[in-house]
């Protein structure tokens, strides 16, 4: 037999002014198992709480119904109050007599009837309540950052500066990402490498940061506070503990292959650092091109290395470690436009290049030392066409979204061409110019003042005639088909999620949108969190954005991590799903609809008559479950149920309304 107490709050006149609270209390007293029913002027006040505590003791109550304001207001207050009484804090139900009754109705009779119904529903529900206990999970104060671009770098520095351990996993041999490839950044035109390389050095030297380059995450388990992560570091064939980065090996290596960093415009050696300011500033051997590793002969690097760092027998290593939080900062790649845009030559013309390739051509440390030269013949282009939205805003061939940064970097490219090549002409084909950012519109103005010709229209075809690349478009403002003869064409290609990000998101159990960008928990209010607790995101893995936005997001993610790490352990809500394994038939329908991938099918030992058998049933990971209850409605047997909102509780509530 339960012993229920009901307290009906006047809330001054807020409730009592409309609802006959005494009648509600009197009705409550008539209900079975209700052993105590009173009204109270201000239940939430100190004296109000004291009265309740006394009554709980006096009447040996084991559950409590408070008819007051919205539970969203004081549920937490009353649960805290119950903490030091004989009643479990979850043996409490609140009937909302203020926001959803007294404040919205004027007819006192009807409002009182409704209040009685609400009270009865709460009493019916509380009767089904069971004591629940919060548990705590420890927080391992170590943060994993996946991706070593500017987002990962910024987040790592912020978290490490706050005093927590950080590991950066980067699949390339150096951190730096795309930003370090860029020449200048809009709209201020400061040198990209000059502002990003110092940060890279900071990362390399920070006592709290462990750098894992040439590495990838291969497995993730666990949940917020303690993710078990396995990281695989590819064989580098160079012992970085001994190597001083003298670079002698690179000068002697006989094998030359196109440099990825320079977009294939010049060569690197088989033992190489991707670029001069690489961090770590130590080379690795590319096994796909090294003669020694492929054919078993050469070994020049090993011979010249003064410290004997070269180890051709090096193998991949796996490390498993526990992290309390993860920041995903995997960045972007450019859409493979060659496969999609046959009308732009499909990659047949060397002088039709992407914006990123242009960045290397205009970069003083690039293959042309900053001289803008045509890749085909090394001459200076006179007429340059820039085509925007190649792959963006094109659901037919590419992506439907806007890639956000292109308008600005195209303006920057135009400016750079006009500055570096006097007498050159730049034509920019655009649909809309989008410049929402500080100083962006001004920069666009300046580019037009520099002489860039903006043509509103999309280019339909690029073909070669008389040695020129003819770009056929429409000037939609004139309403006429037009063509521009170009020496070089720069395509502002769409950003797409980094190659292989799907594998990672599946491993992490985080959602992606249809374009495979990582899905944030809420587009406005939780922009750097994912649906999974403890996993945050930063930068372009979430969607196209420019450097300022990326850095801001990275710092925001870092703050989230620091907030999590500021406590030693985390309390988890007990109002989560649980499985009655006796009832569960293992159909797995709940597994499909869980947004947190918190449910899995497991095999348990069971008895079937006299036999011991294996049985497959659902199991809820309490670290991942957020308590939405979607699974419960998918379960036909009612085997999976949500604590605090059980089937029985809700059905009793429904019944109570109608009696």
């Amino acid at each position: 037999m339960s012993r229920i107490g009901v307290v009906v709050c006047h809330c001054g006149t807020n409730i009592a002014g409309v609802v006959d609270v005494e009648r509600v209390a009197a009705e409550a007293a008539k209900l079975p198992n209700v052993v105590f029913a009173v009204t109270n002027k201000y239940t939430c006040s100190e004296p109000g709480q004291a009265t309740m505590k006394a009554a709980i003791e006096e009447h040996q109550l084991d559950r409590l119904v408070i008819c007051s304001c919205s539970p969203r207001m004081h549920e937490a207050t009353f649960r805290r109050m119950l903490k030091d009484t004989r009643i479990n804090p979850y043996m409490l139900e609140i009937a909302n007599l203020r926001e959803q009754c007294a404040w919205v109705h004027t007819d006192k009779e009807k409002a009182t009837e409704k209040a009685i119904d609400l009270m009865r529903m709460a009493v019916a529900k509380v009767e089904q309540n069971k004591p629940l206990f919060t548990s705590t999970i420890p927080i391992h104060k170590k943060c994993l950052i996946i991706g070593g671009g500017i987002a990962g770098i910024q987040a790592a520095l912020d978290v490490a500066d706050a005093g927590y351990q950080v590991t950066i996993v980067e699949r390339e041999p150096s951190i730096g990402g795309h930003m370090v490839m860029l020449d200048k950044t809009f709209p201020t035109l400061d040198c990209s490498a000059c502002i990003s390389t110092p940060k890279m050095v900071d990362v390399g030297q920070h006592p709290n940061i462990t750098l894992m380059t040439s590495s990838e995450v291969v497995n993730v388990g666990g949940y917020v506070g303690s993710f078990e992560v396995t990281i695989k570091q590819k064989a580098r064939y160079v012992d970085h503990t001994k190597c001083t980065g003298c670079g002698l090996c690179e000068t002697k290596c006989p094998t030359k292959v196109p440099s990825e960093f320079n977009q294939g415009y010049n060569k690197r050696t088989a033992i190489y650092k991707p670029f001069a300011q690489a961090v770590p500033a130590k080379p690795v051997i590319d096994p796909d091109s090294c003669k020694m590793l492929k054919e078993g002969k050469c070994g020049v690097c090993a011979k010249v290395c003064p410290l004997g760092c070269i180890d051709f027998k090096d193998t991949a290593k796996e490390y498993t470690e526990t992290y309390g939080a993860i920041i995903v900062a995997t960045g972007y790649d450019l859409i493979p436009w060659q496969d999609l845009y046959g009308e732009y030559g499909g990659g047949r013309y060397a002088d039709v290049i992407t914006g990123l390739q242009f960045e290397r051509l205009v970069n003083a440390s690039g293959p042309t030392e900053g001289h803008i030269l045509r890749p085909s013949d090394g001459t200076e282009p006179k007429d340059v066409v820039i085509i925007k939205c190649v792959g963006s805003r094109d659901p037919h061939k590419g992506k439907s979204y806007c890639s956000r940064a292109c308008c600005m970097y195209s303006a920057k490219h135009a400016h750079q061409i006009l500055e570096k090549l006097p007498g050159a002409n730049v034509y920019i084909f655009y649909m809309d110019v989008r410049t929402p950012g500080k100083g962006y519109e001004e920069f666009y103005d300046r580019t037009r003042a520099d002489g860039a010709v903006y043509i509103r229209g999309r280019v339909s075809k690029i073909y070669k005639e008389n040695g020129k690349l003819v770009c056929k478009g429409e000037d939609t403002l004139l309403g006429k088909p037009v063509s521009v003869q170009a020496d070089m064409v720069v395509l502002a290609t769409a950003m797409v999620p980094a190659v292989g990000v799907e594998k990672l998101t599946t491993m992490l159990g985080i959602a992606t949108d249809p374009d495979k960008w990582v899905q944030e928990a809420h587009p406005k209010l939780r922009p750097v969190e994912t649906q999974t607790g403890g996993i945050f995101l930063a930068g372009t893995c979430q969607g196209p954005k420019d450097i300022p936005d990326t850095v801001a997001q990275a710092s925001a993610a870092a703050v989230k991590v620091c907030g999590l790490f500021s406590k030693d352990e985390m309390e988890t809500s007990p109002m989560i799903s649980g499985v009655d394994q006796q009832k569960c038939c293992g159909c797995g329908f709940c597994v499909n609809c869980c947004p947190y991938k918190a449910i899995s099918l497991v095999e348990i030992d069971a008895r079937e008559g006299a036999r011991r058998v294996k049985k497959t049933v659902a199991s809820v990971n309490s670290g991942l479950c957020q308590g939405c209850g979607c699974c419960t409605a998918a379960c036909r047997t009612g085997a999976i149920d949500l604590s605090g909102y059980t089937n029985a509780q809700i059905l009793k509530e429904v019944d109570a309304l109608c009696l």
Partner: protein
Amino acid sequence: MEECLNARSGAELANSIAARAGVKLHECYQCGKCTAGCPMAHAMDLMPRQLVRYMQLGRMEEILGSKSVWLCASCHTCVERCPHSIDIPSLMELSRQAAKARGRVGVKTVDMFSGIFMQNVKMFGKSHEALMEGVYNVTTGRFMQDMENVPHMLKNKMVGIEPHTTNNPEEIKALIERALEMGGEDA
């Protein structure tokens, strides 16, 4: 006088044409890739992009009176490259039929040739290139068009005097008449 955009008298026709072509007019953001790739745009008075624009605004008058709908070569370059796969050839075709139904013919020779072609098929069940060209030249009064090639063709027996036919040309004639009887879907 500036154009007043409140009048959208052609909206109904435009929407019905768009619906039949399976086009969502609102999707077009006027990038002009259609015009840019259109082989006939240089001869058109209304760019393919503008056709969609006028339809968006519910103004069919300009379209029905245009040459463009008659000049479309149905090469489908526009729709193939359109970011939203807007089926402009169908819009062109249906607009042309709507124009024809209202007695408006932007390019008379095009209309004539189509008529002669179908007359030809109706008569023989198969088309007959030389005969068609001949009748066309007589009808339009352009007696010499393409005539320089005739001797070559005759010499090499690339044109016969006897038109080839199907077994029963009447059958094809009946077929065409049945199709025409059912009428266009547009009233």
